[in-house]
């Protein structure tokens, strides 16, 4: 525990230093608050907005979680299909590469046209950008198995299904979770963009409103909350990873790990 506290000390100081630098430059340079409010003003606005946050926070979390869960479920199912069937792989790999190159964000206004203003649109945009890292990582994880390990499995005459569930699946987990980490941050971006493009609720929507009203402190407070949500989701993924892979010793399985 003391080790942990000591480990947390340096990052805490780094955070505090950035905030202090921000506050100090506001005090010294005195920019107009609508250009750059100080930390104190942002905190004051955060508190003053009070219960007003609740509906927006809930809406944003809904978009993120729905998009993220859909990306994880469909991404890993897709990866299994790709790995299981050569025909499917050959048919859809070029398509996937093409889609991956297309900037998914460019579809956001179109998705709004298709699904209208609401949770469906926001979650769909989040899903679209979070989906591919899950798919690609999981597929790579399922394919990359030490060739010697497969030889070993053949030499002990292991059935195909056993090789999949006992060797391929567990050895893909570190890659799957690496994909999940990336997807968790992308889902946040997607949901917020969904709220920018067309929404009547959510923290992203609130940022647009705050901008229009030149309420910069409110915008920054909303950004702070979005970051907090993203951080919590990322932390949840890391926690799940440790629970699922106790044998990796908390290094995330893939080396080097951040």
């Amino acid at each position, binding site marked *: 525990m003391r080790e942990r506290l000591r480990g947390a000390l340096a990052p805490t100081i780094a955070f505090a230093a950035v905030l202090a630098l921000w506050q100090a430059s506001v005090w010294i340079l005195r920019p107009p608050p609508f250009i750059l409010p100080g930390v104190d003003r942002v905190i004051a606005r955060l508190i003053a907005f009070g219960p007003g946050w609740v509906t927006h926070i809930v809406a944003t979390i809904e978009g993120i979680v729905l998009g993220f869960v859909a990306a994880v479920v469909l991404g890993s199912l897709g990866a299994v299909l790709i790995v299981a069937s050569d025909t499917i792989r050959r048919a859809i790999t070029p398509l996937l590469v093409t889609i991956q190159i297309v900037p998914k964000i460019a579809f956001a206004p179109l998705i709004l046209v298709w699904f209208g203003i609401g949770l469906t649109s926001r979650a769909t945009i989040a899903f679209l950008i979070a989906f591919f890292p899950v798919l690609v990582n999981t597929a790579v994880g399922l394919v990359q198995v*030490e060739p*010697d*390990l497969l*030889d*070993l*499995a*053949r*030499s*002990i*005459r*292991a*059935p195909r299904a*056993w090789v999949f569930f*006992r*060797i391929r699946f*567990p*050895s893909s*987990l570190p890659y799957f979770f690496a994909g999940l980490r990336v997807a968790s941050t992308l889902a946040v971006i997607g949901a917020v963009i969904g709220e920018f493009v067309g929404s009547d609720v959510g923290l992203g929507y609130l940022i647009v409103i705050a901008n229009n009203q030149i309420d910069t402190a409110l915008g920054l407070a909303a950004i702070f909350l979005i970051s907090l949500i993203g951080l919590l989701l990322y932390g949840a993924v890391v926690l799940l990873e440790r629970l699922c*892979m106790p*044998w*990796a*010793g908390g290094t995330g*399985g893939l080396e080097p790990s951040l």
Partner: protein
Amino acid sequence: MAALIEIRDVEKRYTTRAGSQVALRPTSLEIAAEEFVSIVGPSGCGKTTLMKIVAGLLPCTRGEVRIDGVPVQEPPDGVGMVFQAPTLLRWRTVLDNVLLPADAQRRPRARYEAAARDLIRLVGLEGFANHYPRELSGGMQQRVAISRALLLEPRLLLMDEPFGALDAMTREEMNLELQRIWNEQPKTVLFITHSIDEAVFLSDRVVVMTPRPGGVRAIIDVELPRPRTLHVREHPRFIEHVGRIRDLIWSKPGGAIP
């Protein structure tokens, strides 16, 4: 003594864009039951190819391998394999890794657990049964791999440069250990190495292979008394064997010895 393994005119060719490449020139070899035979030769001489053919992991282009008179077409029963990398499953404890062959063949765990624990003791890992591979050193991991190969009481042990990745000290220790294990549980061993020293130390016979395209150059009988200690390396006969094998590997057939 009747031969356990008969290798008759086994040849391996690969068809590449550059045409047909010979990986292994026609090779014949007989190995008696409970004999320790090493194959030594430089990288790319087809040692591993030959072993995979014997293991039934790779079809040969010509010739055949028989184990106990039965032609090898797919991985046969009663063969244990050890590779250069320990190829342990990171998510399984030492005990569960050793039990892997029984698990793959859906044999009842209860029947093999005592045997697995005995093997863990035999290779000197008592007290490590519940450790994960990442908690073990390279030499210890390779000991686990040896236990795993011995679990189903194979008649034949195929070892492909099992100590090639270990440091020199650990390697000497493992050579002694392997000799001890082999004394306690006599098996037919086909051992691949590019260390001439190791081959002479461990073997009843050493098969010398030539550089690519590989083929058998000579077979050397090592009649040094057993059990051999590390000091056998100072024995004049040992030194003589090592020198002779080195010459055989690098000289052209019929040509002068460099």
